[in-house]
């Protein structure tokens, strides 16, 4: 029976909330984890900062422009990772039989897998990314349209990362222990987006646009926010196409997920 998606979101929230409550049983370790996570990811940005103390600009982009790229991608990644990061663990769930147990519960498997062991330890990264993004935004010449594009950029960025996480985790339905391979695309994709993408050859940019569409997470919409021409000469329409990229990635991932589950139930392994 088809149920309203809002029901699934609610169930997701209830499962997640339970895990947050459980984590609060040990408040110190929770805070330490979150702060530690923030510090470690913060070093990423410190790296950029140090680089800019030697350079005036990177491929024509100033520090605050790169910070905008970094902050927006990092926000989307941290949010996606928090919301559905545990989907990476399906290999383990398959091996331990946990997946079988989830399949006997009346909640869609994807909702259960994503919400299981929900943790806010990425809160550190989220905060750090938020601060960088806020600082960089003060250099943006805001117009109502740019605000709209910025909001849609963050939402679409989450969707792109949702899709990448889910889609690449599905490899584990066919071969377990493919986490590292999947990470190369998800976290690898995220690392790449910390830099202006025109530092890469055009072929790489094409790949990051059409294959692993992380360029839509921040690169194209940020060009619009900064009012810059695309240095790689990609169509201007791309700068507004992030929501489309997000939806397409998400839809593709759901299809892969469904065929992964079907493979699992038809092979039992």
């Amino acid at each position, binding site marked *: 029976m088809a149920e309203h998606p809002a029901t699934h979101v609610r169930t997701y929230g209830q499962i997640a909330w339970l895990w947050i409550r459980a984590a609060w049983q040990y408040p110190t370790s929770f805070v330490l984890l979150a702060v530690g996570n923030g510090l470690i990811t913060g070093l990423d940005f410190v790296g950029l900062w140090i680089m800019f103390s030697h350079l005036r600009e990177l491929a024509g982009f100033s520090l605050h422009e790169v910070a905008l790229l970094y902050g927006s991608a990092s926000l989307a990644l941290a949010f996606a990772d928090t919301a559905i990061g545990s989907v990476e663990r399906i290999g383990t769930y398959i091996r331990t*039989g946990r997946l079988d147990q989830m399949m*006997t519960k009346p909640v869609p498997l994807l909702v259960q897998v994503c919400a299981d062991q929900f943790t806010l330890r990425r809160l550190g990264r989220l905060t750090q990314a938020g601060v960088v993004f806020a600082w960089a935004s003060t250099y943006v010449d805001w117009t109502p349209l740019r605000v709209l594009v910025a909001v849609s950029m963050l939402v679409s960025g989450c969707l792109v990362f949702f899709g990448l996480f889910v889609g690449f985790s599905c490899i584990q339905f066919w071969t377990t222990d493919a986490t590292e391979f999947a990470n190369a695309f998800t976290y690898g994709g995220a690392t790449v987006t910390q830099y202006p993408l025109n530092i890469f050859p055009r072929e790489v940019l094409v790949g990051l646009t059409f294959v692993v569409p992380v360029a839509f997470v921040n690169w194209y919409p940020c060009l619009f926010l900064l009012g810059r021409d695309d240095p790689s000469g990609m169509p201007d329409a791309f700068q507004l196409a992030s929501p489309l990229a997000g939806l397409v990635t998400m839809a593709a991932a759901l299809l892969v997920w469904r065929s992964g589950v079907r493979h699992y139930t038809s092979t039992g392994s």
Partner: protein
Amino acid sequence: MPTDPSLIDVRDLERTFDVRRRVEGRRRRAREQVRAVHDLSFSVEAGEMVGYIGPNGAGKSTTIKMLTGILVPTGGQVRVAGLDPSRDRVELARRIGVVFGQRSTLWWDLPLRDSFDLLQKMYRIPSARYRENLERFVELLDLGRQLDTPVRQLSLGQRMRGDITAALLHDPEVLYLDEPTIGLDVVSKGRLREFLRALNAERGTTLLLTTHDLQDIEALCDRVIVIDHGTSVYDGSLAGLHAQGGSTRTLVVDLVDEAPPVDVPGVTVRRVEGPRQWLSFPADASAAPIVAAVASTYDVADLSIQEPDIEDVIRELYSREG
């Protein structure tokens, strides 16, 4: 659509697996088809308590997986409560309870109570019903003091009781139990069996139980389905299984002194080792007259009874058929 009143209906069920095996001298691994389950048919009516038994690797888990929708059959058909398990898996989940004996469904790091609360949300059990059920199961299964303990700190018996409670909170029509008493001590086993019997009597919950413990079956099931090599080799009463399998119980007698093999009607002496003797008698016969006869003729230091082993019964059943 033909109406079928059976709660569980399995017809000509088949499940094959592709297994890849390394072959000496060949680069590619050879593909081989293994039939885990084949030509399996049975039906279970609402309110029945059925023992589903068989040796390891006989196809028990594969059957349970197909009944719960975790695995799609490669042939034949399954209906549970009128639903096709693999197609209507999520809908069926509301109406069944599953307990995998070896693996807990509970959340390891959470207190038992949190796991139950979470299940209430997942199954959307009305609050009043949930409180009533929880209270009742906690009382019957004596879990009151464990409710706030994280699952990882529970003993095996406590965890099993927690798992059973978890599987019953939403009032399932069918409860699948996979080795529910494995590893439990005698007292816990007894209480668990008592609880399951009461559950069946009061709520009419249908039970399908896989087990290695014949006493589970004896205490709970009026009917046994024996599966071996992927298909059903027996379906009927436990007494019938004993009769057909020619199974025996063994009375182990420790005499005060060494003696020649005891001579009591209805028993066969299997083994003598010093003052200890092993006497076997048909599993459906009562042990009382035999014990009385032995005790009246000999000086007995100690007595114990060994129940027939399920594997032996099945082996016997099979060798007779073959």
